[in-house]
């Protein structure tokens, strides 16, 4: 293994640049370094003006998603050595406006989140404070996978539908709605149906499956969307075929 590697990093400062450019940095290649360690080396030793987000460095806070050699990746969980001998292209996440360098604006997602009502909805009065809702381990497993989303935005960056239509709710938001729909304690699926079944909801998805391919936490948003399409279709069918009282 060579002991150096080149990172070709997107730079963009809106005050001075008309469009993003690439800047090359030569850094040590160490087997234990992830891409983020390389960026931190640049920031601390070569160029203090490079901007990017990061925090936990253990793949759970969701801050450090970027495009590495064309693929959306969590840079704290992607090792430099996998790309040797380089160079490695590091770009901001696709499908979001660039704020600066490797920082993108995810405001669109943050505004979509509350629309899918990602909280537990109970139609009855809340239970007294002294007791938990019972939930069997198998019932918990039903929604567990969809509860693991870290909102890292890799799926939005990979989604060809979101690339064309920014009104699309998108993989993570729909998976999160399903997380609550499938929770045995929740009674809010009817309330979420309007937004999920709208033109910008599940039906916009063409089932390319890129979202699930890039998800670093195996949440499988594509699976969540397919499953919900079936639920919504059955529901529509029931509305057509059954008398009101039997729905």
């Amino acid at each position, binding site marked *: 293994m060579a002991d150096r590697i080149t990172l070709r990093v997107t730079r963009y*400062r*809106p*005050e*001075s640049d008309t469009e993003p450019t690439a800047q090359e940095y030569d850094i040590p290649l160490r087997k*234990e370094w992830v891409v983020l360690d390389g960026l931190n080396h640049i*920031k*601390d*030793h070569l160029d*203090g*003006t490079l*901007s*990017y*987000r*990061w*925090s*936990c*460095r*253990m*793949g*759970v*806070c*969701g*801050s450090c998603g970027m495009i590495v050699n064309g693929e959306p990746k969590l840079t704290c*969980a992607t090792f430099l050595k996998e790309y040797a001998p380089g160079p490695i292209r590091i770009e901001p996440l696709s499908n979001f406006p660039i*704020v*600066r*360098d490797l*920082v993108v*604006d*995810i405001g669109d997602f*943050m505004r979509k*989140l*509350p629309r899918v*009502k*990602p*909280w*537990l909805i109970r139609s009855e009065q*809340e*239970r007294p*404070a*002294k*007791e*938990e*809702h*019972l*939930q*069997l*381990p198998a*019932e*918990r497993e039903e929604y*567990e996978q969809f*509860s*693991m989303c*870290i*909102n890292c935005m890799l799926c939005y960056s990979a989604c060809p539908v979101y690339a064309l239509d920014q009104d699309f709710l998108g993989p993570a938001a729909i998976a*999160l709605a399903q997380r*609550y729909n499938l*929770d045995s*304690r*929740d009674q809010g699926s009817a309330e979420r149906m309007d937004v999920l079944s709208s033109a910008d909801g599940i039906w916009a998805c063409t089932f390319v499956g890129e979202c699930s391919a890039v998800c670093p936490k195996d949440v499988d948003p594509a699976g969540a969307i397919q499953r919900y399409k079936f639920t919504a279709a059955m529901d529509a069918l029931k509305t057509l075929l059954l008398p009101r009282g039997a729905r």
Partner: protein
Amino acid sequence: MTLSHDVLIVGGGGAGLRAAIAVTDDDPRLSVAIVSKVYPMRSHTVSAEGGAAAVIRPDDSLDEHAYDTISGGDWLCAQDAVEIFVKEAPEELLRLEHWGCPWSRDPDGRVAVRPFGGMRKMRTWFAADKTGFHLLHTLFQTSLQCDRIARYDEWYVTKLLVDDGRVAGVVAVELISGRIEAITAKAVILCTGGCGQIYPFTTNAAIKTGDGMGLAYRAGAPLKDMEFVQYHPTGLPFTGILITEAARAEGGWLINKDGYRYLQDYDLGTPSPTPVLRSMELGPRDRLSQAFVKEVEKGRTVDTPYGPVVHLDLRHLGETVIDARLPFVRELCRSYEDIDPVRELIRVRPVVHYMMGGVHTDVHGATPLEGLFAAGETACVTINGANRLGSNSLSELLVFGARAGRAAASYASGVRGTGGAVRPGVWAQAEEERRRLERDLLGRDDGKEPISVIRQEMRATMEEGAGIYRSRDSLAKAADKLSALQARFRCARLDDRSRTFNTQLLAALELSFMLDVAESIVHCALLREESRGAHQRVDFPLRDDRRFLANSLVCRDADGSRRVEYLPVTITRWPPGERVYGR
């Protein structure tokens, strides 16, 4: 534009979100906002793994949880606060259940509990080994249904505004635009978490830079028990990633280079194949980390490029248990160590994890500075004493986040009744802070060295001088070095002139807070001439209840000088005694 709220919360992690919800529940007329330097779901609560403690089983009792906490804290805990904490913890964890938190379950559908270090009963609720992640996302998502909680995401608070002895708001920078604004408020709650980043090797995320402690200290509010820094015994070498205590609670063993369960040599009990509560691997964190240092001294650890390590052995637990109870541990070991704990040993060493100290508050989260509140790791209510027990911190941030929210709401309602208009002096302070940021930092053109060099030296200084074992000599050297670093910081080089997402400016402001916090730790550690919990002085190896059964308070006076006072520990029902584990 005037930005103004009744209650302003700094920090959007577990404590901040819980406080915000409590404010809206308490008084729906109040305007509440969260200012956070990251999107709330990025907050460091997300990294907590093992669980949250609260009495729920019939064979358990509040008194036992209180005793474990107090003895675990080496009798430095405020016992009245602990009694409130253990009583309200179950209500808070149940509330999280009602909000949808995916707690792991027993076969009958009830919430499951697991053992944890220093706890004599099973009372740690968990969501596999991603408890903090689920707790944070549940709180954040629950908060979204309340559109009266305003959010300033990715804004960084640089200063508390204080008017006539009373908090009046903050000055903050919006990172995306660089605009600097005063946000006025009747009450401010600091919920910014800890400061692990002042040490070189920590489980703490990059954002854990002691901002709230620094803000409070500079505004004249005292910091309490700062000398008590928790080293978690099991971090992965190089990365410092936490391997949860739950790995030992499920039956994992700590072994030295000879394959020997060395904790039996340190008055922690005798080895047994299955976990025994309050014994061996389920002893408290301070004692386990200290035992590691002794093993290093005996030459019984394994050398690696990242320093000496011991091994955590989970192999005998089997794949089924590991996948069901510790899936994240397996994922982290595979990703970052390239090993599979089902078949291989995990290399671990102690790692800076948690601050027992913080902003001095009462049981309502109120600080001595009127209108200023604090909760979570930023605060020191004193339930953790000289050593926090694992799984008490998530419960703490809920109990005292909620209490601080309610107290701030009630305070703000009272101030509103009296008018509470912002006075001209406040605007002058805000203007002065804006000038400091624009001229002294963004406009600096004669800087000498990069801030990363100063930061690195600060971290090395803290590990060297104020680590697991300290002495007068090591601390005095650290104090001198930190004071030199403060001077060098004032001449540091800042070359990023952009207003847009300027992370260099952010790093400089964070470093400045960290230097203040580091100095307060070293100063209090120097003055505490005894060994208690996580504070071990090689020159004063015994606990000294006659002189130091007291909480330290460090305070910055108006002239910038530092003053330390001691408050007697509040003892209710548990007189100081010997800490007994494994016998």
